[in-house]
Structures are given as C-alpha cells and as structure tokens.
C-alpha cells in the first residue's frame, strides 16, 4: 500500500518546513494559535509573556504554596493516588526514554532504504515479519509507541508498524520470562501469551491493510527535522517525543491511579464466578489498570479467584490496549486513529486470547 506511506510522509516534510521557515521573523503567527484554542484575551500579551515566563511563575507559586499543597494531599486516599501516579511515571520513564532514543535513531540515522530492504516488499508479508521483530525489543508499551510513529514516518507501511507496536511489548523475552516466573506451575500461560499476542498483532496488521485509511493517522509535525544537522535533528526528535508522548503518559498515569484508588477489588470477587463475565471483567480491568507489561503477569497471578483463561485475556489485552496507551496513541497518531484502533484491538485481543485459552489451558 504505497499510497499510505506516501501520504503520511509529506505532511511532515514540506508542510512542517513551510510553517517553520514561513513566519520566521514576521509578526505574531495568528493561524496556528487561532486554530489551537480560544485564547483571545491572551493574544495581546503574546508578545510579552511566553511559556518560559509562565513556567517560572508557576514554579514560584508551587514553591510558595508547597506546605498547603502537601497538607491538601495528605488524606489517605489522595495520598495513595499520588503515590500510584508518581510510581507509574517513575517506572515508565526509563522505558519511555529508551523508546524515544531508539525512535530518534530510527528517525535520523537509519536511512529510508534500510526499511525497504529489511521488510518484505508486500505489506501482507511485512506484517508477520514486523510482529516477530517485536521479540527483540526488551521494553514495555510506553517505548513502543514513539518507535512505531518513527517507523511510519520513515516509510514503513503502517500495517507493519502497528503490528510491531502491538507485538513488541507482549512477546519480548523480558516479559515472557516474567510471565514464567509469575506462573511457575503453568508454562502454558507463557506459550498462550506469546502465541495469542502474535496472532492479535498480525490480525490487526492485516485488518489495517483491508480497512485502514491513511488519513486516520496524523503524525505530529516535525518542522525542526528538515534541513537541520543530524545532531540537532536527533535532539529535537528526543525533546519532542519525550514532551509529547510523556505528556500523554501523564494523562494515562492519572487515569490508572484513579482506577487503582476508586475501584475496590471486592467488586471483582462477584464477577469471578461466571466464565464469560470473568473474561470480560479482566479484559476491562487490563485496560483500566494500565500496568506495565513487565509487571502485569504478577498482578494476574494474584487474581487467583479468576480462571486461567480470563487471566490470559488480561495478559494479552493489557500490553495492547490500556488507558495510557490510548492516550499516547491519540497523541502520537492522532485521535481519529485511536478511537478506531483501540476498540478494534480490544475486540480482537479478547477473542483471540479467549480462544487460545480454551485450546491451550
């Protein structure tokens, strides 16, 4: 599907470049700001107060009001929320940074021709190859989103990049080893997880080839990357991806912390008895909890009141669809993409994992 790759690349290039060099030195660029939000009253101040000043004022305020702030957060529920929120982010930062560095390397140092040679020419064949390539990326899902964005930008067919996005967090050796440790008596969980995750990734890749539309994906523009030196382009890509994907990671972490605090585990107990309800309950829980794929096996192991099949569904759905991933995908690929891709992946993942559980477990 050459048209897909072609149409997703140019908006980044000429369009971005135009907006980068066009208004340079000219008056205040009204167009992007007008489209961005209703910021009428602020615009008159625009020339004086930039984001550095806002940032400085914000920081001073925070330091001044530090004590009342800490008091306000001392209620046990709020405190637990803050702890979970901070810990999700601290846990994710190394993986995010690793993924962002790798994606910046792909964006700047790996020539386009490499991907043409590395992947089969036919998109339908590139999908399974890309899914299997996920085996070599030891990380969790936070890192794979910017990498997939980078691959698409470098001309990899979106179907293959998306298959990689889904497969990499679930089938890499670190995650499979963690699964084996968490389920010492059930090696078939490891097999089931690897097989089901690969199948879901490939099905989604092929589904994208048949139904996907290139204009659903809108990668953020990267004006700086054109014409800059390689060093400048590399660090610009790192900065942009950390700020962008990281910002959406914060949204996801806030959602996950809220679920963690607001949904007591007792509610799950009542769902565990029905085979169908338990599968659906753990699938939804995997989406809501947004646990890192390297840790979710241990959580699944502790949900012992649920059947093995429903826990396999938890392990397959979690790394592919969860709140922080949806948020990051909306940020990196655009909202129109995320609202279609996430539900479709959810349905396919629940179906495939349920089937794998019925056959293997």
């Amino acid at each position: 599907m050459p048209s897909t790759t072609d149409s997703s690349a140019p908006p980044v290039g000429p369009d971005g470049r135009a907006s980068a060099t066009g208004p340079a030195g000219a008056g205040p660029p009204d167009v992007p700001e007008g489209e961005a939000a209703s910021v009428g009253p602020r615009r008159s101040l625009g020339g004086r107060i930039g984001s550095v000043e806002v940032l400085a004022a914000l920081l001073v305020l925070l330091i001044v009001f530090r004590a009342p702030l800490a008091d306000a957060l001392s209620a046990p529920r709020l405190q637990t929320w803050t702890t979970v929120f901070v810990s999700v982010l601290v846990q994710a930062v190394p993986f995010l940074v690793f993924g962002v560095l790798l994606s910046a390397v792909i964006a700047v140092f790996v020539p386009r021709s490499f991907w043409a040679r590395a992947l089969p020419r036919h998109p339908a064949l590139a999908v399974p190859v890309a899914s299997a390539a996920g085996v070599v990326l030891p990380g969790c899902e936070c890192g794979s989103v910017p990498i997939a964005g980078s691959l698409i930008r470098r001309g990899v067919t979106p179907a293959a990049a998306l298959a990689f996005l889904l497969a990499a967090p679930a089938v890499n050796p670190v995650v499979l080893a963690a699964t084996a440790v968490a389920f010492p008596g059930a090696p078939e969980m490891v097999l089931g997880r690897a097989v089901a995750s690969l199948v879901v990734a490939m099905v989604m890749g092929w589904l994208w080839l048949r139904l996907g539309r290139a204009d659903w994906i809108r990668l953020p523009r990267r004006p700086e990357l054109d014409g800059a030196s390689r060093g400048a382009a590399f660090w610009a890509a790192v900065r942009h991806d950390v700020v962008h994907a990281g910002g959406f990671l914060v949204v996801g972490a806030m959602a996950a912390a809220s679920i963690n605090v607001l949904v007591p585990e007792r509610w799950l107990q009542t769902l565990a008895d029905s085979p169908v309800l338990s599968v659906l309950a753990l699938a939804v829980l995997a989406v809501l909890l947004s646990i890192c794929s390297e840790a979710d096996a241990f959580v699944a192991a502790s949900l012992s009141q649920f059947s093995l099949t429903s826990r396999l569904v938890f392990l397959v759905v979690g790394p592919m669809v969860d709140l922080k991933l949806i948020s990051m995908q909306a940020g990196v690929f655009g909202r129109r993409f995320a609202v279609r891709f996430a539900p479709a992946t959810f349905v396919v993942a629940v179906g495939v994992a349920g089937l794998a559980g019925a056959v293997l477990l």
Partner: protein
Amino acid sequence: MNRQAQAVVLLLLGGAVVRASVTDLYLRYVKEGLRPFLIAAGLVLVAAAVMTLWYDLRPAPRGDAHGADDGADDGPGTGGHPADDDGHGHGHHGPRVGWLLLLPVLGLLLVAPPALGSYAVGQAGTALAGQQQSDYPPLPPGDPAPVTVLDYASRALFERGASIGDRRVRLTGFIAPGPDGQPILARMVLSCCAADGRPVKLGMTGDVPLGLPPDTWVELTGRYSDRVGRDPVNDAEIPYLAVESWREVPAPRNQYE
C-alpha cells in the same frame, strides 16, 4: 509551549528523576533494580534539555530565527488541563500536553508521597493467593530467625509451618486495620512499581500490639500459629503469628518486599 520551556520542563523532570534515584526516594515507588536505568534516563533527559537550549540559544548560522516567534505564539500557557490536549492543535509550537510533565516533577520534588501503606492494604486482597509452593529451604540461622513477612506467611500458609517448626522468628511490618477490627501486620510486595503493589497480611495472636495508629512500623518476635483467617477482599487465607514480644521501629529503608 516553546522550545525553551520544553527544555526547562525536561531539565526539571530529568533532575527530579536523578535526585529521586541517588537518594532513596525512588524506593517508595519502584523496585531497587531499576535504579541504574532511572539514573541513565534522568541524565538523558538533562542532556536533551541542555542540547535543546544549546541549539536554540547559540547564534543561528542560517537565519534560524524561531526563538522570537516561538516565544510569541504559545498563548495558552494553562498547564494541567487534559481537555485542551488534542495533540494536534499545537500548530508549529510545542505540544501543550507537555505542560502535564510538570505534575510528576511536582510530585517528586515537592510532594514526594510516601510508600503505600495501610490504606492500600485495605483496598486490595492479600497477595498470597494460589501461588502454591511446597519446598522451602530451612529458616535462616539465629534465634529468633530473621524472616520477611512474605516468607513467614507463605511458609505458614502453604506448608502449615512445617519448615518453621518450633523456632522463633522475627519480622518487620506495619500495622493496618484488619477485617475484624483487630490490627494486622502488613507489608506491601512490589513486582514492578507501586501500581502493582499488593499487601501480604498477617494476623496476630498472643501479645498483640494494640492501640497503635495504622502505618506504625513494628518488629515482632513470635512463633508459628496454626490459626488462619480470611481476607474478605479476595476470600484468601490470612496466616497468623503467635506474638511473644514486639517493639516499635522506624520505617525500613525499603518499605516494600
């Protein structure tokens, strides 16, 4: 959000992560093994900030005058509103969603929330559900033998104290309100970060430390008890310890097991 503001945010985030990982602050949130990766990631963030400022502030060789217009065009500087982050409304200036990165900075530098405690214990079921295991090594030497709450609880539960026998054990945990109003001893177990933290719960008989507020850390010395309770949260069994003596202790360096 212009590039300089992004650089400052990255600098703060990287600095906060490095600071949390060179002190013991990070142990409240993640496993100890993550430390080298946290330091490395923090340094990369700081480097990204420095390089951004360097490329941005040095005299541009080819009329690269973004600095001025970037400063002007980032009007909506209202950080912290997920509602206004459509991810693509940011024209050619930086993503507004990036302002949210100040929240973890704030969390790490100013608030520094404590490790999970008794509230989280009440929310979740005991972690010792179903991970059956039967071959335990002998207890460590010493009288009383130092054991972790997790170790004692799994020996007591899964082999009915066979490897403990009549020996005295010493373990450290914090007080949490139990299901029947009696205090229990708890310790959180992490496999990755505090988001997946699960409590190990231990009932107490004998010289029970009564009247202590929740989250007080105590060191218990006692022997195996064959009494077993039930955790109403996930209907799992809670083992008991026959306490012979106890004393209050300061919170350990790593509060998780």
